[in-house]
């Protein structure tokens, strides 16, 4: 089933075209306006030594006028119609006075007819009605087994409590079975559901989308502070909260093992990254570097490299920006970076941002696409109505290869497997990256030895290299079970440089890297 548009937002949806008219009527040739509504409903339950339940509702509206290459915005959560109409009038009056004469040509949005002729993916096409006009209320939502709009926090509690009880029992048995291990200090399980509803209205479109995400985050911690985690979830309903057998082992056994783990000697090693770590490398490597606003500010090395057609990686180095990803690998759901349109109403389409080592034009929002004179993509996102819009990543992943994971491991005489990500950071101007991994699993003579290693100081391990060096060192990649070869993507989040947190899925295959600096 696909969740339908919630009735309680219908009144404000009907007000939005009126607000748009106030902002734009009579000056359509001078500027472009839209109105954006977002409602975020989040509930979570934490089962741990200290329990917690919380439900949050956040609803806000943004009025945007784009004129002479600048975005002007008023945004508020004071949503009674009278104050919104007054705000729109005041905003219009302010800009009428400020922009008596316009220097640059206004932006013209695309009609539904043009959008359809440019092609849309099946998940979008299937939800478009017939006889589409600028006044048609179009609604998009992903397929879910369990309707997230009717989920109750009681059910979240049940899942969290049962998961924790099962994991605690297993961990206790593990510790009793091996005298080397202490009992875990605690297992903390958080189940969180978030439902984001957006409405976008401009002169050509009136559309809405529901983006539900669910997550079961389970973590085991020892008294010495070592921890291991497992995460289940994605774009959909409660059906996605089940931890796999491997996940449960990670929480109950790996955390105990980590308390006894060896420390890695700092140096360069052959490494296989799992989808979680691969995704962070994709996101930090040519993800941030290919963000249009970073290009616009002269802060990325990618613009010159694109223009000079410089190759920045080997034939295996291909990275996708894929907002309309609603299935992946062997799973029929997307992840939290997926949506149908971005926060400026641009419809989602996939884009290859790095094609066998060659850089494309960047991902963009409206302002950067206009300034750079490059195509718009669906990458205009904001943390919330409270924050500015920027070019942001959706789902970023390395394309899949042709090997099995066992084959990749078999290719390593002496090296490590990095399965779990632990942060990362970009340097779009300097072209370096760092991606953290919680620990490394040792590989000797083509086999996992069972030994695990923490970083040299007993924390996580940082993987770091200049991006070009790294992308030249992809040896092989694992294959995907997906019909369109989309690999596994994980739930993820991104703070651009250090703030503005947005959901951003990332992933890819298992990748064997010839060598990476590990410290």
């Amino acid at each position, binding site marked *: 089933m696909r969740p339908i548009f919630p009735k*309680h937002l219908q009144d404000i949806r009907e007000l939005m075209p009126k607000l748009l008219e106030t902002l734009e009527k009579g000056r359509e040739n001078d500027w472009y306006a839209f109105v954006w509504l977002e409602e975020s409903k989040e509930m979570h*339950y934490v089962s*741990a*030594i*200290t329990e*917690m*339940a*919380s*439900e*949050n*509702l*956040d609803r806000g509206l943004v009025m945007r006028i784009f004129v002479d290459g*600048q*975005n*002007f*915005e*008023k*945004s*508020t*959560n004071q*949503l*009674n119609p009278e104050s919104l109409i007054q705000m729109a009038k005041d905003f219009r009056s302010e800009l009428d006075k400020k922009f008596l004469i316009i220097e640059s040509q206004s932006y013209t949005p695309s009609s539904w007819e043009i959008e359809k002729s440019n092609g849309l993916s099946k998940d979008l096409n299937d939800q478009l009605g017939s006889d589409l006009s600028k006044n048609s209320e179009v609604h998009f939502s992903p397929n879910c087994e369990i309707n997230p709009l009717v989920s109750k926090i*009681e059910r979240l*509690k049940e899942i969290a409590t049962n998961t924790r009880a099962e994991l605690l029992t297993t961990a206790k048995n593990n510790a009793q079975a091996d005298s080397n291990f202490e009992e875990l*200090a*605690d297992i903390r399980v958080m189940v969180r559901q978030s439902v984001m509803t957006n409405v976008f209205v401009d002169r050509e479109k009136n559309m809405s989308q529901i983006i539900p995400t669910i997550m079961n985050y389970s973590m085991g*911690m020892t*008294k*010495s*502070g070592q921890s291991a985690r497992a995460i289940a979830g994605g774009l959909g309903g409660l059906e996605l909260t089940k931890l796999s057998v491997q996940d449960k082992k990670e929480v109950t056994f790996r955390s105990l093992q980590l308390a006894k783990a060896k420390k890695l000697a*700092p*140096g360069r090693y052959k490494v296989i990254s799992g989808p979680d770590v691969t995704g962070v490398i994709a996101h930090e490597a040519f993800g941030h570097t290919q963000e249009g606003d970073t290009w616009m500010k*002269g*802060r990325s*090395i990618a613009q*010159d490299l694109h223009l000079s057609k410089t190759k920045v990686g080997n034939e295996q180095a291909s990275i996708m920006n894929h907002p309309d990803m609603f299935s992946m690998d062997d799973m029929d759901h997307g992840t939290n970076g997926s949506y149908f349109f971005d926060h400026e109403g641009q419809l989602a389409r996939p884009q290859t941002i790095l094609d066998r080592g060659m850089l494309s034009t960047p991902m963009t929002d409206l*302002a950067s696409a206009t300034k750079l004179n490059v195509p718009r993509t669906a990458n205009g996102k904001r943390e919330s*109505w*409270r924050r*500015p*819009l920027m070019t942001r990543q959706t789902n970023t992943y390395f394309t899949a290869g042709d090997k099995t994971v066992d084959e990749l491991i078999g290719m390593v005489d002496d090296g490590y497997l990095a399965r779990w990500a632990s*942060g*990362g950071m970009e340097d779009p*101007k*300097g072209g*370096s990256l*760092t991606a953290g991994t919680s620990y490394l699993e040792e590989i000797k003579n083509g086999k996992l030895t069972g030994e695990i290693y923490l*970083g040299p*100081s*007993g*924390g*996580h391990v940082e993987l*770091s*290299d200049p991006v070009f060096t790294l992308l030249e060192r992809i040896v092989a990649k694992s294959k995907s079970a997906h019909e369109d070869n989309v690999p596994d993507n994980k739930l993820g989040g991104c*703070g651009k440089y250090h*703030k503005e*947190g947005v959901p951003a899925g990332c992933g890819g295959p298992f990748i064997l890297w010839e060598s990476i*600096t*590990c*410290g």
Partner: protein
Amino acid sequence: MNLSQDTMLPRLKEALDKVKKNNLDQFYAWKIVIQHKNSLQTLMVGKESAPFDKYQSRDVLDHSYKIDVYSRHSEPKAMGNASFTIDPLSDLNIQVEKTFSNSLMVSNKPWDLSTKVNGEYETVLTTDPIIAENLSGAHERLHLEINDKVKNLDKVKVNSGELFTNLKTTYFEMSTGLKGQRESSDIYFEIALEKLPLPNTQEVLKFKNAISIGDANLSKFIDDIVEETLSIKETQLPKTSDNATIMIDGESIADLMQDLVSQLSAKREYDKTPFLTKDDSVLKGEKKLKSDKLTLTLDPTVPVMAMTTPYTDEGMKPFKAKVISNDKVNFQLINGRIGQYLGKEPNYIDGNIIVDVGSSSKDEILNSIGSKECIEVLTFSSLLINSNTLTWSSEIKLGKLWKNGKIHSMIKGGVVSGDIKENLTNFKFSNEITKKNNTGGGFYPASGYIGPNHMLIESGVKIAGE
């Protein structure tokens, strides 16, 4: 702005009291938080020797309501609590009922909420009067200050800037009788620039968080970044080392101290996560004789700092205390709830981190290590600190390699990692004082720091590089 006069407040209290009346045996208490925030946000793109061009200008009005409901239920007695952000346009009774019902799902060890404050709230300065009086005027004034500086820069290219000026008022009231209001201002400014001529691959990105325009001192902030940018030369990878010597700045010292202080929280003891308690040493390994010692105070009263506050989250008066003295813990941080859980007297110690400075200047410290190599880390790519293990690591985004008191080369890349407790066995603080604020939100909790601007670390640091 007096939020105790908010027209929604009596309606919310009425709805809460109605649910309480209908569930007297289980409904224990409530708390209402009202927040009003105005934010002006400007995003800018730079040009050579010219003022910034604005490309995004935002005006945000945020007025919100949140409730907490506390219940007592089950046998043996358990305490439940749940929070809910209120939709002012929907039925309040339904939302309060829902929150009460959610609280019944939670079973924590019971604790008593306080019915009176432990003293009178102190009058503390948390707002810049200039911002409070005229937010848009203050924002414009800051913008002019930035542009006056930027348009005259000719040896660097300014790539981008962001300026946020915020004014927030928060009011709380509890059914137990506690109530209070505080106003706070804050400024966020970031700037990215690079050395001319172009093209180059080294950019300096720095940000400043401040509570007042005076403390922000954006002209000086830009001058300092320009100086740092102009000092950049060709870089090289650091050498791999199992026992490196590094120097970090006030920003990074503040981050390390913040995580160390987090282990003083008595809540960690209750939650069975690693913690420090009275008389514990903050060291791991043998203390070197020549090393400085750590003395750290928490102070909630320092004017215009991020952690300055008249009351704690529980509505109690916070207290100043020297929590670490000569590397030894004097006090855990114990609030009312955890005090009751652990059978310890609550002390409500909270506030900004104040670290005693050292006796030598940065230059004197660097000279004192002679021919030993020291990497001064100007910028970490992303300093990740594990508050459980107190270990940290990052790529070096930019650094200077010092030898014999002189800069030998610039450093970029490689991974540096360390263990705070080992680091504290062999370190020196400079005698230059700096002030850092982080108003919180997003990825970081709020924090305030006044202390040394440099720290030389000679133990517990490893580098993976060349």
